[in-house]
């Protein structure tokens, strides 16, 4: 059996198997250990014949390893008693098994995203256990040393074991808060992928893909949550524009100049359908509103046809859920499009404290440019340039400044 078959099976089933094993072992580390051993065994046994249900095969072997590991001890006895029905069946089939798998996945997700863990630990743990990323890959994605990331993961797992974080699906009254934490982790993963803070490429698509997969996983296993659907719709709609966002030379292309034929229409349609499904639940939230804004952009055949009035209203609604500087900034841009750039400038001036924030200066520059204040525009572009370390964004800003010099002969 070629090892890539094993790898493919493993990727598809890994999180489900791991989720079940963690429940049985009551330990992340023990679960990971026995799963690794089961994989080694698979590489030998599957050479001759692939089992009919490779995932179930792996789970069964890993469970046996877990028992072996604890043989003779009190823990084996405990484990046997608690899970007799599971341990003695070799194949898990039927409806019950599916429901059980769903519960296990959700347990793992809610545990990894437990709000008492540091946000970076939540992200790392989620990517490591539910995503398909290795510790090396997670470390690379967040630009930290592998040893630092490994230590972060070890510490998070130890906190789960020692601090009394239960491996359980939260009770109904805690669900909204805990789900918000899960969705936020997924959003942060996507964001890191979409706007890589450093480095050569503008995007890290592997992280975007992982975030999409995770948001889909939430809706698959915990259906009926409007904000979870809103988040998946939002991510799909943003991701659908990926090929138009960077040109052939790897340069950033802003929304207004994107070649809309390069947007993935099928993905946009799927995103909008999902958003409509969410909105019908009448439980509005920030992700749904943001998805609606993306949908309005997506529905415009050309940039000039964008319904900015609707976008301005949506940002106004978003401010009710999330009064952040970033949202105010986007609101200002929408106001600029509808009411003119002088009005937008007024809003931007009120945001004076955003000194260290790159998009703020970029927005100020565009505003000044629209109002014909070329010197101010140049200063703002210069400030923005000083605040981003991303090569693609830097090139875009440098180009903008060069255009200004050529156009108007400032200097």
């Amino acid at each position, binding site marked *: 059996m070629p090892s890539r078959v094993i790898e493919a099976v493993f990727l598809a089933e890994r999180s489900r198997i791991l989720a079940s094993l963690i429940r049985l072992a009551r330990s992340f580390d023990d679960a990971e250990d026995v799963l690794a051993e089961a994989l080694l065994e698979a590489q030998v046994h599957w050479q001759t014949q692939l089992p009919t249900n490779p995932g179930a095969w792996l789970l069964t072997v890993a469970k046996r390893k877990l028992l072996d590991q604890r043989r003779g001890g009190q823990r084996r006895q405990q484990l046997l008693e608690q899970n007799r029905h599971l341990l003695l069946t070799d194949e898990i089939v039927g409806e019950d098994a599916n429901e059980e798998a769903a519960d296990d996945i959700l347990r793992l997700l809610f545990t990894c995203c*437990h709000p*008492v863990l540091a946000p970076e630990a939540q992200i790392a743990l989620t990517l490591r256990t539910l995503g398909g990323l290795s510790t090396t890959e997670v470390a690379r994605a967040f630009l930290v040393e592998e040893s630092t990331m490994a230590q972060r993961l070890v510490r998070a797992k130890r906190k789960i074991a*020692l*601090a*009394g*974080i*239960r491996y359980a699906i*939260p009770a109904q009254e*805690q669900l909204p808060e805990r789900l918000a934490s899960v969705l936020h982790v997924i959003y942060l993963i996507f964001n890191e992928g979409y706007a890589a803070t450093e480095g050569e490429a503008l995007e890290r698509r592997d992280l975007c893909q992982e975030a999409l997969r995770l948001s889909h996983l939430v809706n698959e296993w915990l259906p009926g949550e409007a904000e979870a659907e809103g988040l998946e719709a939002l991510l799909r709609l943003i991701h659908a524009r990926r090929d138009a966002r960077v040109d052939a030379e790897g340069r950033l292309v802003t929304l207004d100049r994107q070649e809309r034929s390069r947007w993935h229409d099928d993905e946009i349609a799927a995103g909008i359908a999902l958003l409509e499904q969410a909105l019908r639940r009448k439980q509005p939230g920030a992700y749904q509103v943001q998805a609606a804004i993306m949908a309005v952009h997506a529905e415009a055949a050309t940039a000039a046809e964008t319904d900015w009035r609707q976008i301005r209203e949506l940002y106004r609604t978003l401010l009710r859920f999330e009064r952040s500087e970033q949202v105010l900034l986007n609101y200002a841009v929408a106001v600029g499009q509808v009411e003119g750039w002088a009005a937008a400038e007024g809003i931007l001036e009120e945001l004076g404290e955003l000194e260290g924030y790159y998009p703020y200066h970029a927005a100020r520059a565009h505003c000044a440019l629209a109002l014909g204040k070329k010197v101010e525009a140049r200063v703002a572009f210069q400030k923005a340039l000083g605040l981003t370390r991303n090569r693609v964004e830097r090139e875009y800003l440098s180009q903008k400044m060069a255009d200004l010099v050529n156009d108007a002969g400032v200097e």
Partner: protein
Amino acid sequence: MKYMLLIYDDFAAYDKVTEQQQHELFGRYMHFTEELSKSGRMKAGDPLQPPFTSTTVRVVAGKKVATDGPYAETKEQLGGYYIVEAKDVDEATEIASEICKLHTWNSVAVEVRPIMVLPG
């Protein structure tokens, strides 16, 4: 599981309120402690004297050195503690948030720390 809840209190705020207000805070604590006991989750708990009464001790080169004041000079200082029995960290942090809510005119932070179970 047992957790220690360490209450970090802004002591400077006590000088800015009336005795009546301080008295009311004390009353809320009494009531809270009573309820916690009734629910069977209270294992121990006490308020502490203010930080200026504190002494920090080290042994330097084999010699005891006691210095006046708390271990760390921060705005919020350890002002009391509870030891509670809770089924998980969610329950423990919930109790901690109830403690925070007792304080209506100053800010507190409550650190939730699991107590180590020694073998044997």
